[in-house]
């Protein structure tokens, strides 16, 4: 009897062990829902290696290709992205696009995780100063030698695109928006000011500020948060208007040159806005511009769409330039233009011809997204300006412009606008320093000249360490 019992015990144990191992192993495998890297379609064989897919003019000749695309984050663009994907696949049945929604807040670190996993988008939506991180690690495909490149570039506003120091063009502008001052026409009238004549100089600007501020109303609502990217949306426009240039760093990328008297004037203006309480350090809740709590807004293209959709009846949107110092010798009204680009992230998982065909297909898709019709479609649903030279004359675009409040006046500022300084690869880090100086100044922890001087020292240190 005991023999049998021992046997059964021993078998039992083995079963137990086996069972546990199997269960754990399968649980592990089941939980490992790692998506298989895309692009592993019928890979090119040796003969395909002789054909240079990258310079192939006709994409229809490519073998079966799969590329990945992340629709840009907002709901409207996700919808449009799906349509564009379907339309492109219809044009080129040999190209499959795996579209998905871009994950949230993917910064450099995160993106590398996706790149390594082979799940990142081949068409990357970027901003020029962020490109530097990618192309210094050889992640971007230079575009200038690709078929049809010149055609695309010819229609783009050259000020909104850049060629890097090594002669390569790594990205092309997709949508843009110059920064301007928007005003609430109703409140302007009530204050006895002339809405046809928005302020152009600092003293006019401050005059308006005083007239439009009282117990429960303020003039502007400039941001006071510290994320590194905020400076470009607030102080940079004033900097460019005052200096007439977007240069922050010397051309050879070794010295900070932003600490100019004009820059100081722009900082002093901003400081005055806060010191005189024309602008609160508090962030007002809701949308204070729409509700009338704030009479002016330093903003970009998206505001027009917001006003159209959400503003109360009778809301009058006025557009004015970014003011310049009273004694300014700068011509016209230059301003900052926030531009988002398309860049191609090279295919990493494969090499040679197989990678080339994917990159080529991605380029074709990019050209499609940058075609006038697609730019107009994007413009229509988001209000972000196409970055083209003909934005005021192309009927596809003017049609949309006319549907937006103050659309044409706004678009007229695009011509004299600049993207962020591209004299160094440390653009983002420099902006971080500048944002901090700006916030320090607003909260009165430093005087404007101190803030600029300290920022200059810090940036010079950063540049020296390169």
């Amino acid at each position, binding site marked *: 009897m005991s023999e049998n019992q021992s046997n059964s015990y021993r078998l039992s144990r083995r079963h137990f062990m086996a069972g546990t191992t199997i269960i754990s192993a399968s649980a592990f495998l089941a939980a490992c829902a*790692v998506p298989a890297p895309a692009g592993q379609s019928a890979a090119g064989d040796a003969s395909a290696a002789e054909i240079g897919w990258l310079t192939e003019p006709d994409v229809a000749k490519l073998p079966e290709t799969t590329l990945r695309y992340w629709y840009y984050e907002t709901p409207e663009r996700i919808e449009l992205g799906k349509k564009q994907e379907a339309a492109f696949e219809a044009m080129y049945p040999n190209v499959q696009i795996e579209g998905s929604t871009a994950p*949230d807040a993917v910064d450099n670190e995160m993106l590398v995780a996706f790149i390594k996993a082979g799940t990142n988008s081949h068409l990357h939506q970027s901003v020029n100063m962020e490109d530097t991180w990618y192309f210094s690690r050889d992640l971007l495909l230079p575009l200038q030698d690709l078929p049809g490149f010149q055609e695309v570039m010819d229609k783009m506003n050259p000020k909104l695109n850049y060629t890097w120091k090594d002669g390569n063009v790594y990205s092309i502008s997709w949508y843009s928006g110059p920064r301007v001052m928007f005003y609430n026409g109703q409140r302007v009238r009530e204050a006895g000011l002339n809405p046809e004549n928005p302020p152009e100089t600092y003293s006019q600007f401050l005059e308006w500020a005083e007239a439009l501020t009282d117990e429960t109303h303020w003039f502007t609502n400039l941001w006071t948060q510290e994320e590194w990217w905020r400076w470009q949306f607030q102080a940079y426009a004033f900097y460019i208007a005052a200096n007439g240039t977007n240069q922050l760093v010397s051309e050879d990328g070794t010295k900070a040159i932003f600490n100019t008297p004009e820059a100081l004037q722009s900082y002093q203006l901003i400081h005055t806005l806060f010191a005189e309480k024309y602008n609160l350090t508090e962030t007002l809740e809701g949308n204070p511009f729409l509700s009338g709590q704030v009479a002016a807004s330093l903003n970009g293209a998206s505001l027009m769409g917001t006003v159209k959709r959400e503003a109360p009846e009778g809301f009058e949107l006025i557009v004015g330039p970014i003011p310049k110092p009273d004694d300014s010798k700068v011509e016209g009204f230059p301003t900052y233009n926030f531009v988002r680009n398309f860049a191609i992230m090279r295919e990493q998982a494969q090499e040679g011809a197989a990678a080339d065909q994917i990159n080529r297909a991605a380029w074709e898709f990019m050209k499609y997204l940058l075609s006038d019709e697609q730019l107009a479609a994007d413009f229509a649903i988001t209000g972000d300006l196409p970055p083209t030279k003909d934005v005021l004359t192309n009927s596809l675009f003017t049609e949309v412009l006319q549907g937006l409040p103050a659309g044409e006046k706004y678009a007229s500022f695009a011509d004299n606008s600049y993207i962020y300084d591209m004299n160094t690869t440390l653009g983002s880090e420099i902006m971080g320093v500048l944002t901090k100086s700006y916030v320090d100044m607003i909260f009165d922890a430093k005087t404007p000249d101190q803030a600029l001087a300290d920022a200059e020292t810090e940036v010079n240190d950063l540049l020296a360490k390169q």
Partner: protein
Amino acid sequence: MAGSTLTQSLPPRVQRRQGQLSSFIQHSALYGILLLGALISLFPFYWMVNTSLKPSYMIFTYPPTMLPAEPSLNAYRYVWETMDVPRSLLNSIVVSGVGVAINVFFSSWVGYALAKLHFPLKRVLFFLVLALMILPQQILMIPLFLQVNRLGLIDTFAGVILPYAITPFTIYLCRQAFLTFPDDYVDAAVIDGAHHFQILLRIAYPIAKPMLLTAVVINFYWSWNAFLWPFLVIRSDEMTTLPIALSRYHAFADQRWDAIMAAATVVALPILLLYLAVQRQFVDALTMTGLKG
């Protein structure tokens, strides 16, 4: 009841009345304070639901209304359309369910070994368990992320569960649980020819069931509410758990507080319902962490 000496000098009848009066005051004060505290505890919940039922143009009106003048479920409808609630709920269930199962199961192995077996370095291992319990997350955050990245587990269930699959605290709990019965039981079973896995299954688990249940509850609770690690590892909308989905929604919906509050309510609901269902075990579990620590 020990009264003051003053009271004790009064005649018994008056003393009794005094006693009754002071007792009444004490009673009212007791309930009064507790009720006040309860109201304070509940107020944010109430405010969350209140805001979620307001139509969106009313959320910023001042003074804020205590009850929505025109209650509307618009916010919930909006949340349903823009946030993938079922998906997040499912993910949370999977992550927590699988995580707890793995945790308690394998922790019990170690706990049993530490409690009932003899082997070299046993003390060292136990010390390791204790030390790991207080190791701050700071030092591991980045390397752990990179390690998980290298293993290709970013944005996968495995990536969320594995690094914290077996927690030292659970091991500790299991060990405590298995210490409650004498070694004799184990010895006797060994003599009978049983192997330790059987002992674990047939003796240890049944005896330690209450404690193990506590471990399950506390782990589920911890896993369900976990934020930091899932926040780093989960990248896509398909894989988010409820807390992460809510934080994303908070960023996405910007100033639409009615929608954000509705989303918060929806996220809070499952665990609250679970709590109501197993209130006893929950409180016991939470208390246990305080006592056994």
